[in-house]
């Protein structure tokens, strides 16, 4: 017989109390695991969405007079200083190239359509539509791209030009069919512009290879945006590479809030579990005062009593931690994403098992230490009273 056997036998005898402690730890650990994994998923989801919802790095010519494109300062197309298509392959050579999810070059040209001054945007449609996932296009189904002789109109541009789907607009002497109209987005650069194939516009404007700016969406959920910006600046001479701070700050704020929420709730659950363990073990020790007195009388040292009580708490906490992990992880995998409406898959994270067991063991031992210490210090004569 070892001290562990005494602890195990006591646990078997006090099934209800043992179950209460296991359930308490299980609920605490399950909630923390669920909260942690779903919060991670929410963070990832938000980051993905923020990354998807537009560019977060803008590449412009380094000098020249300024013009405004939707509140973003860009170079005037009339200036000599222009970018060209050769920059795009260069961008794909930086160290963090895998973070560059979308590279959307644009050529901005002012022109007259039906007697009105209109901003023509030559875009790489596959890249542009990937970048502007929030666009609601009337006339094109999801994944469908306009042809070379087709254009997409912003909602304001369509109204002011009096054009509707499948009608033809004459641009620089060439006819283009309206393939789609963007439903109002609330941003000037989308609503007032006419989008045309980049190569076609370069040809029409007689500026082969020319581009005015490059919008880039970097998946910077984990990447250092400042480093990516520096790498692009270094590799693209004559350009000004700017990280859009507002996007980043907004994303950081959101993530910070999620983190704060998760940590606060986890702390509360940790304290609640600890309290339940302390109370359960305290009550268990009080119930066993006489038994502890017997053990002390027959020569058990204080550390033996400590060892028995802490073994009990440790074993129950480990069991609670294991069940809590299975419950929390199972709930997160099956319902987590749906519950928080995140469009990400929450994978089964077996690496969290170690943390769950470690944390539950720590809670169990710390929360039981005071009752165990009190038990160890019991005076055997007092415990056996009648002596």
């Amino acid at each position, binding site marked *: *017989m070892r*001290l562990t056997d005494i602890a195990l036998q006591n646990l078997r005898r006090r099934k209800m109390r043992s179950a209460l402690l296991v359930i308490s730890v299980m609920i605490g650990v399950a909630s923390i695991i669920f909260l942690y994994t779903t919060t991670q998923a929410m963070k990832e989801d938000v980051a993905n969405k923020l990354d998807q919802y537009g560019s977060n790095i803008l590449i412009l010519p380094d000098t020249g007079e300024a013009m405004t494109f939707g509140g973003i300062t860009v170079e005037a197309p009339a200036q000599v200083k222009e970018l060209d298509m050769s920059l795009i392959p260069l961008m794909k050579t930086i160290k963090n190239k895998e973070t560059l999810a979308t590279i959307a070059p644009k050529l901005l040209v002012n022109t007259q359509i039906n007697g009105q001054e209109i901003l023509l945007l030559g875009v790489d449609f596959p890249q542009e539509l990937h970048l502007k996932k929030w666009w609601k296009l009337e006339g094109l189904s999801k994944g469908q791209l306009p042809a070379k002789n087709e254009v997409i109109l912003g909602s304001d541009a369509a109204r002011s030009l009096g054009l509707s789907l499948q009608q033809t607009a004459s641009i620089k002497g060439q006819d283009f069919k309206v393939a789609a109209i963007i439903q109002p987005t609330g941003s000037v650069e989308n609503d007032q512009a006419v989008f045309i194939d980049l190569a076609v516009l370069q040809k029409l404007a007689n500026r082969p290879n020319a581009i005015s700016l490059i919008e880039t969406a970097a998946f910077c959920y984990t990447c250092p945006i400042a480093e990516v910006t520096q790498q692009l600046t270094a590799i693209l001479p004559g350009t000004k590479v700017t990280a859009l701070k507002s996007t980043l700050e907004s994303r950081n704020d959101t993530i910070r809030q999620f983190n704060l929420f998760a940590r606060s709730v986890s702390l509360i659950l940790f304290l609640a579990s600890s309290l339940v363990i302390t109370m359960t073990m305290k009550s268990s020790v009080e119930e066993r005062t006489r038994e502890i007195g017997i053990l002390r009388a027959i020569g058990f040292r204080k550390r033996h009593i400590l060892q028995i009580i802490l073994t009990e708490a440790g074993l129950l906490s480990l069991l609670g931690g294991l069940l809590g992990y299975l419950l929390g992880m199972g709930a997160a995998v099956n319902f987590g994403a749906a519950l928080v409406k995140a469009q990400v898959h929450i994978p089964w994270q077996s690496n969290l098992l170690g943390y769950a067991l470690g944390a539950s063991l720590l809670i169990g031992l710390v929360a039981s230490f005071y009752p165990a210490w009190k038990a160890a210090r019991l005076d055997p004569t007092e415990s056996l009273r009648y002596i």
Partner: protein
Amino acid sequence: MSLIKVCEVTKTYKGGDGVVEALKNVNLEIAEGEFLALMGPSGSGKSTLLSIIGGLNPPTSGKLIIDDIDVYALEPERLADFRHEYVGFVFQQYQLIPYLTALENVMLPLAITSRPGKEQREMAQTVLDKVGLGNKSNRLPNQLSGGEQNRVAIARAIVNQPALIFADEPTGSLDSKTAIELLELFQALNRDGLTIIMVTHNKENLAWVSRTVYIRDGVLEAEGGN
């Protein structure tokens, strides 16, 4: 030669009515191999004296010397070791651990030794055989009669082969037949060389002991031999 020397032992308690003097300058010597009865009315201080001699309850003043060891000069953890090595207790209400079988209860003092489990089991079974409960070793305390529980308590007290057995009113809750069986068991253990000190208020028990010490109001009154 004395195995136990109780020297000028006084024990006071702070109670609601002020300081209560449970033992007053008690001097007592007990030789190795004695079967001693501590006799006295309720509240006379006999259980207090037993707990002091058993290394459970330090005196307010005075000394306890057992086998030339000044018991209460020992550090608390060494005192626990001393109890483990020298003393076996048989408590009034048997005090078995209810969730352990008879065999496991007997094995308890061995749980803090380095003896392998098999050896512990064999030793416990041997003493259970000795007290006549070898066939009930897997029963829980609540599946045993009062007399049987008392025998398990005795087996637990002797399994570690201590020099001393302290028994506090061991026959208090037994019928006369079972009480006699128990006293005969004590006598047999005493014949094997164990020193036994038994607290009792039952004069019938004195027929089995080798010496009786009377105590009243915390003072040793007289001694009687058998």
